[in-house]
């Protein structure tokens, strides 16, 4: 605290790093700012009044309900699995440790297509149910995927790995001493979990959860396919059905407020205690071996989570795809387009994430401005950012069809996902000793040398995780790509969405599976890397 205060006072007001950070933050924040600005000054007239009086409450309540339910499901999926995987030994533990991250590869909308088909009244699950019981379709109740709980389930399936990852890291970093002290005081495993481990891991779990919930709030693909009227869907409707981009922007402000609310709650949770980890003195406790019954019970639980969130929907897509045969459609080019855009977008986002992460270490102004811009970008749905980009395009006279659109798209990706990439980079700094900068100064390193010789390399220890998360996120992005891609440019996400919206699930399966497959490689890499890092820490 003192250190930050003192150095911010000490530094000249506008040093180069602060200026660069400011520039990066402006790049990240500009599309949101422009969209919101247009919304606020653009009025909206009758359409706005109509939406306020008839739809607004519904959109908001639906969004909040989806967020709440998704949060509950994510905690249910992520926390117990992370707990058992980090602190207990049971059959298949090594497999589940990394496999539970896999669902991150599948976008929410792909899971929505798959579940909507699988759980439909004519789908395999209900058909089997009728065959077994002899009931007719009218004789029983079956939960519908086209509902708030259905959407929540799909989003939780796609996003729980974020919370699983942070919870796992927190549980493996629990102090052995704390755990043994609690045990010696007679704490049962249950109390150990509820009263010691959970409060200690809470900030980390909330960090992952907040990330996942902001994604949930911004989702368009799954919500619109399942017909759930969230704010994000409302934004699309306001723009596309009422032709009121200003109204869409106003709704977006509401959505961004909700996302900032989530961030605020996360900060609160983080602020009230929790473990401060110092890298040197924590040891992973030895994993406790579970008895055969408990062990197999836990294994079955983990299997269930994995099967429900990933195996069933993906197998259903594979089944549909092989059953109907491959279409004659072009798939190589959209695949390359997707990879190209994801690489370019994630590369740009990575540079921005690195800039604001390092800038944040210089002074409080840079820290605030960088975090704020990245937070706003992450909170804004892709469509709002695309809206901002379209405004800029029309002012500057660039054509949406030209290469400018591609550059704008890469920009939008960066604006949207920088926050997700900054998280692992920040974590790299938080693992490093606090006095690094001063140590380097005392050894004669100038500000620039410190940047190059200390800050950059330290941040880079989180680089691969950041790069992978950014790549997978941009690969899955749908709404902005849908609006900003230039002529003759289809990506896998766009193809999957277009086919699925036109009720050609069979045609949508191949691009859907390819996105998942393209994301799977990096996710496995990330998973193995994080798992290994955990193990080496445990051994060290």
């Amino acid at each position, binding site marked *: 605290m003192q250190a930050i205060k003192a150095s911010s006072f000490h530094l000249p007001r506008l040093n180069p790093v602060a200026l660069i950070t400011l520039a990066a933050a402006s790049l990240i924040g500009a599309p949101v700012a422009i969209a919101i600005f247009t919304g606020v000054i653009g009025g909206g007239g009758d359409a706005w009044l109509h939406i306020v009086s008839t739809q607004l409450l519904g959109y908001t309540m639906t969004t909040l309900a989806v967020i709440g339910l998704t949060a509950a499901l994510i905690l249910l999926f992520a926390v117990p699995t992370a707990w058992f995987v980090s602190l207990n030994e049971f059959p298949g533990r090594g497999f589940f440790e990394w496999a539970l991250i896999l669902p991150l590869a599948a976008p929410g909308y792909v899971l929505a297509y798959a579940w909507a088909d699988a759980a439909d009244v004519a789908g395999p699950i209900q058909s089997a149910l009728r065959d077994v019981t002899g009931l007719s379709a009218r004789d029983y109740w079956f939960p519908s995927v086209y509902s708030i709980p259905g959407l929540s389930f799909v989003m939780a399936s796609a996003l729980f790995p974020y919370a699983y990852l942070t919870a796992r890291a927190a549980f493996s970093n629990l102090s052995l001493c704390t755990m043994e002290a609690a045990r010696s005081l007679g704490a049962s495993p249950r109390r150990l979990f509820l009263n010691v481990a959970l409060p200690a891991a809470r900030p980390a779990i909330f960090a992952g959860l907040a990330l996942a919930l902001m994604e949930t709030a911004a989702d368009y693909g799954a919500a619109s396919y399942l*017909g759930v009227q969230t704010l994000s869907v409302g934004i699309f409707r306001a723009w596309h059905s009422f*032709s009121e981009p200003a109204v869409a922007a106003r709704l977006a402000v509401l959505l961004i407020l909700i996302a900032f609310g989530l961030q605020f709650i996360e900060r609160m949770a983080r602020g009230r205690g929790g473990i401060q980890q110092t890298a040197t003195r924590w040891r992973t406790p030895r994993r406790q071996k579970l008895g055969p019954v408990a062990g197999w019970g836990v294994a079955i639980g983990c299997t269930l989570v994995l099967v429900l969130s990933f195996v069933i929907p993906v197998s259903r897509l594979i089944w549909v795809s092989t*059953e109907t045969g491959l279409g004659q459609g072009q798939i190589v080019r959209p695949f390359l387009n997707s990879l190209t855009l994801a690489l370019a977008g994630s590369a740009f986002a990575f540079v921005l994430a690195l800039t604001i992460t390092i800038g944040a270490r210089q002074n409080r102004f840079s820290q605030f401005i960088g975090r704020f811009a990245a937070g706003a970008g992450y909170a804004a749905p892709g469509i709002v950012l695309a809206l901002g980009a379209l405004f800029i395009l029309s002012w500057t006279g660039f054509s*949406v069809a030209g290469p400018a659109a591609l550059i704008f798209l890469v920009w939008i990706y960066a604006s949207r996902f920088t926050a997700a990439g900054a998280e692992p980079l920040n974590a790299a700094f938080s693992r490093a000793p606090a006095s690094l900068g001063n140590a380097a100064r005392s050894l004669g390193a100038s500000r620039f040398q410190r940047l190059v010789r200390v800050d950059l390399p330290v941040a880079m220890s989180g680089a691969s995780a950041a790069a992978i998360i950014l790549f997978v996120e941009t690969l899955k992005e749908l709404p902005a790509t849908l609006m900003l891609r230039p002529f003759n440019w289809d990506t896998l996400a766009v193809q999957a969405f277009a086919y699925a919206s036109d*009720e050609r699930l069979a045609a949508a399966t191949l691009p859907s599976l390819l996105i998942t497959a393209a994301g799977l490689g990096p996710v496995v890499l990330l998973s193995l890397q994080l798992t290994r890092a955990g193990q080496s820490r445990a051994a060290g």
Partner: protein
Amino acid sequence: MKTTMKTIASISFTALLVACSDGGTAPAALDDGTLSDAAVESGETTVSMEAGSNGTLNIYSARHYDSDKLMYEAFEDQTGIRVRFREAGANQLLETMRAEGENSPADLIIASDAGALWRFKDAGLTQPLPEGEFEQHIPERLIEPGRQWVGLARRIRGVAYDPERISPDQVDEWQDLADPSLEGEICVRSSTNIYNLSLMAEMIEKWGAEDAQSWADAVVANMARTPQGGDTDQVEAVAAGLCSVAITNHYYWVRMTQSGSDATREAAAATKLAFPSFGEGEGIHVNITGVAMAANAQNNDEAMQFVDYLLSADGQHRLVDETKEIPVIEDVTWPQGLDAIPEFEDSDTPLDTFGERQSQAQRIYDEAGWN
């Protein structure tokens, strides 16, 4: 490992470069045939290499079919005109064009609903097509009176029913669906969908708002479940026994009969397709896929060549063979599977009505609680 990553990176980077130059010929006529074409040829499209370059055509299409790409390529082969296309939902294309303003590169707009075409027209984004031979081969109703758009293919909204529970005369007219005997028997998608909006728009036109409202109220009362999913899902629900009448566009049902999946074909086989009329002699609900000339079109001649191509036998086949829509040109043979649809008698409602009455239709559905 390291080498692989490098290779991937360089491939993608090349792809990006190619893509950039590909899309980068904004005033297309000027620098065409030089750098940009070379880039395209070395990239992905081999078509324009043989064809040479006789200009460019920019199409905004609300369709998304693999066969459309083959259709564009066939046109490029025939004429040497390079086709650049952008596919997205009709509303999205419309808003994109609005945002682009005078900079919009669009020459032609293809959309799959008369209501959608009307919105382009209403927003001032279209201009009259030049007079041409096509007018003689197409039913008059399928051409906008000011030639702001022209129909390319027909699509019919009807019902698929379970012949074991429902007799054909129970789905003879749309009014029949309001009959209390069908309580708990109807499956239908959400009212925000444009197919339902256009259907309701024609009902208002035929019956007046009051009767249309009572029809919507009665159908909501007859629903087997809250509206969810697409048309195909409704047909499948009938096959699964959840309901016995599903409102669907004809081509979804036809595609099901042609599906590669046994289960889907069986589902279609368990149902029958019917085209309810708006009343004795009032005809049925026929909608269109149509094309319009963009208000700021730069390549009008190329655009008209393409419209003529779409209305040629070859163009019609390529347009409807995969989609299972109904050709608008009389002597064109119908796509496979389409012979299974019932005979029909067109209605005389001006197609622009579907757009003009769209918001009124939505209000009626909202009033009825049809979500």
